[in-house]
């Protein structure tokens, strides 16, 4: 794709940016990572940005991202205002465990890494490449595969920093591990960052994580985030992911989980921000008896667009998965949901249930929902259901007949869409924060 006055295609620009990246700041990386980056950029050079002729990208056009000249963000100054904002976003007081990033760069002075339980690690991927070289090499890029999404390949090419968390065997966390990715759009023109996060939970490990992407102001920037979560046998991990980017920003992401036997993974995913966002959520159940829950809420307005492309892969027998995504779209906002469920040959006794409900608050709002079931085993139970439409008149009448005004009734019914997902949040302070976000959207 070439623009007038732009001699280079978007793809060529990123290849050029990679070359200068690989030659400068990233040169300290270990050899294996350099090799991975090289092959990732080669892959991206071949495919270029995804386009709407690809089935998986049919409803989401990333031309606006490809068309901007984004540059890798430098590390901004940490002002007092940023310090305050970070503090307000984080859960808990002095005893919290939090790694904070600003425009993709780890910021130790905003982070709280003291007092972690024995053996638990939390911090930056860049540091972990040295301190936990073996563990990182074993897992990083192994699950979120470059060939599945050109933007994942781009992420791999630009791996430099991001979150790292490790919970050793049989350790159960008391407090959540927090990864906060702050965006300061004012710090440069069209900045981008590719935060790459690795979360490893050992056998029998347990705990919860909060992964948030939060804008400190409005402006155009691009977050291209990839997170890989690995669960050992019988690990039990809850992840809360909150996307609150600027409504002028772009957010593309892959959230990839890989589960061993008997493990339990829950993702509760919130999408409020970005002008254009696309998140691939891929969950692989690769051990007998694994259980996976994917819950999601999107609340968009204006001209925001979001696309959640989810794939649940049942690779082994006796696994269960539960997917429940709600979307609320106002004004001219649009939501796309794809729920792909793959049951591999031999994955007998799979039990999978998928629900996607979309509430359209305006005539110009739009939602597209598509289930995709690919079942290669014969003894399985897979159900799916989707709804989309405006607020139901019978529901309105019921509430109005109890004394609520039409407006109050609409708010309550809309709030119900949000609160159904909020119920899945087991961290009180986070639930309060998100409840506030949902209520703000109602009055907006």
């Amino acid at each position, binding site marked *: 794709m070439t623009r007038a006055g732009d001699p280079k295609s978007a793809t060529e620009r990123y290849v050029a940016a990679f070359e200068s990246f690989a030659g400068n700041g990233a040169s300290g990386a270990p050899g294996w990572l350099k090799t991975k980056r090289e092959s990732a950029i080669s892959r991206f050079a071949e495919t270029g940005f995804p386009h709407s002729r690809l089935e998986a990208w049919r409803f989401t056009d990333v031309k606006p991202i490809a068309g901007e000249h984004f540059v890798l963000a430098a590390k901004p100054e940490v002002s007092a205002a940023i310090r305050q904002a970070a503090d307000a976003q984080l859960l808990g007081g002095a005893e919290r465990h939090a790694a904070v990033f600003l425009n993709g760069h780890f910021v130790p002075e905003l982070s709280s890494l003291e007092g972690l339980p024995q053996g638990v690690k939390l911090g930056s991927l860049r540091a972990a490449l040295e301190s936990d070289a073996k563990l990182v090499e074993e897992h990083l890029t192994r699950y979120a595969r470059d060939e599945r999404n050109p933007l994942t390949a781009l992420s791999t090419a630009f791996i430099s920093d991001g979150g790292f968390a490790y919970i050793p065997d049989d350790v159960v966390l008391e407090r959540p591990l927090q990864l906060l990715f702050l965006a300061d759009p004012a710090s440069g023109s069209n900045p981008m960052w590719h935060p790459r996060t690795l979360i490893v939970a050992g056998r029998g490990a347990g705990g919860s994580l909060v992964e948030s992407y939060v804008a400190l102001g409005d402006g155009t920037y691009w977050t291209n985030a990839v997170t890989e979560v690995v669960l050992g046998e019988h690990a039990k991990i809850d992840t809360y992911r909150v996307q609150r980017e600027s409504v002028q920003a772009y957010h593309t992401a892959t959230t990839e989980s890989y589960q061993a036997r008997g493990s339990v993974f829950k993702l509760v995913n919130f999408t409020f921000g970005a002008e254009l966002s696309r998140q691939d959520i891929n969950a692989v159940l690769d051990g007998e008896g694994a259980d996976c829950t994917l819950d999601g809420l999107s609340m968009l307005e204006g001209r925001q667009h979001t696309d959640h492309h989810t794939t649940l892969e049942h690779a082994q027998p006796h696994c269960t998965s539960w997917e429940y995504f709600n979307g609320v779209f106002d004004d001219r906002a649009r939501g796309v949901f794809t729920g792909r469920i793959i049951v591999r040959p031999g994955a007998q006794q799979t039990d999978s249930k998928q629900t996607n409900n979309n509430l359209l608050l305006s005539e110009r709002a739009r939602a597209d929902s598509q289930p995709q079931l690919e079942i290669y085993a014969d003894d399985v139970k897979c159900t799916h259901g989707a709804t989309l439409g405006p607020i*139901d*008149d*019978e*529901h309105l*009448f*019921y*509430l*109005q*007949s*109890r*004394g*609520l*005004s*039409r407006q*109050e*009734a609409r708010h*309550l*019914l809309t*709030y*119900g*869409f*949000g*609160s*159904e997902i909020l*119920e899945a949040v087991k961290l009180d302070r986070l639930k309060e924060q998100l409840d506030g976000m949902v209520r703000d959207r109602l009055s907006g």
Partner: protein
Amino acid sequence: MLEVKNLHAGVEGVEILKGVDLTVKPGEVHAIMGPNGSGKSTFAQVLAGHPAYEVTGGSVTFEGKDLVEMDADERARAGIFLAFQYPVAIRGITNAYFLQSALNAVRKDQGLEELDTLDFAELLEKKLEMIGWDDSLIHRAVNDGFSGGEKKRNEILQLAVLEPKLAILDETDSGLDIDAVKEVAAAVNRFRSEDRAFIVVTHYERILNYFTPDHVHVLAGGKVVMSGDMKLALELEAKGYDWIAGEAAAVAG
């Protein structure tokens, strides 16, 4: 309290009520009986202000106010309550939160202070105690996954909290076994008072054995074709509605 005169109403151009007259005074219990398709449920919905129904003639006044001009929520705040035959499920909203929102909407309208969550919980506890029910329904999403009996009980719980002046029970007994009918009727009896009126819409007389009406009206073909007291209900139980159809035809003929 309620004055219905020559009420004509219908849905999508089809007239269902063809001249209903009814006068309800405070403290009275009126039963509206009738065969399927007689217009009983339409009458209940029209009184509550369902927007799908259009009033095409006649008048309805409640405490001197013209009901026809009022939206459903205004009617509710004025003291009218409809216990639905088929209550809808509201996902994501607990019963307690819903009831608190509804009660506060009414209180705000009356110039009363809104109740906070703690005050409301206390009030709810008292109401449950009064009708002898446990709190198993109140922390679940409104009617979501409720059994038929639970839905009907939930309607009565709302009645108990909102304390309307006029309560319309639309086939509250339908789909319930006899024990559940007794339980619901007993709860409603607790709220019978000199100032509160009830309209009980029902196909069968059995709920009326536990919630005795002062007046019984038979609706057929969109009109009240006969009025009487409890004896009329018993007669209907014994003879069925075909008898009424004959009588009505004789009157019309």
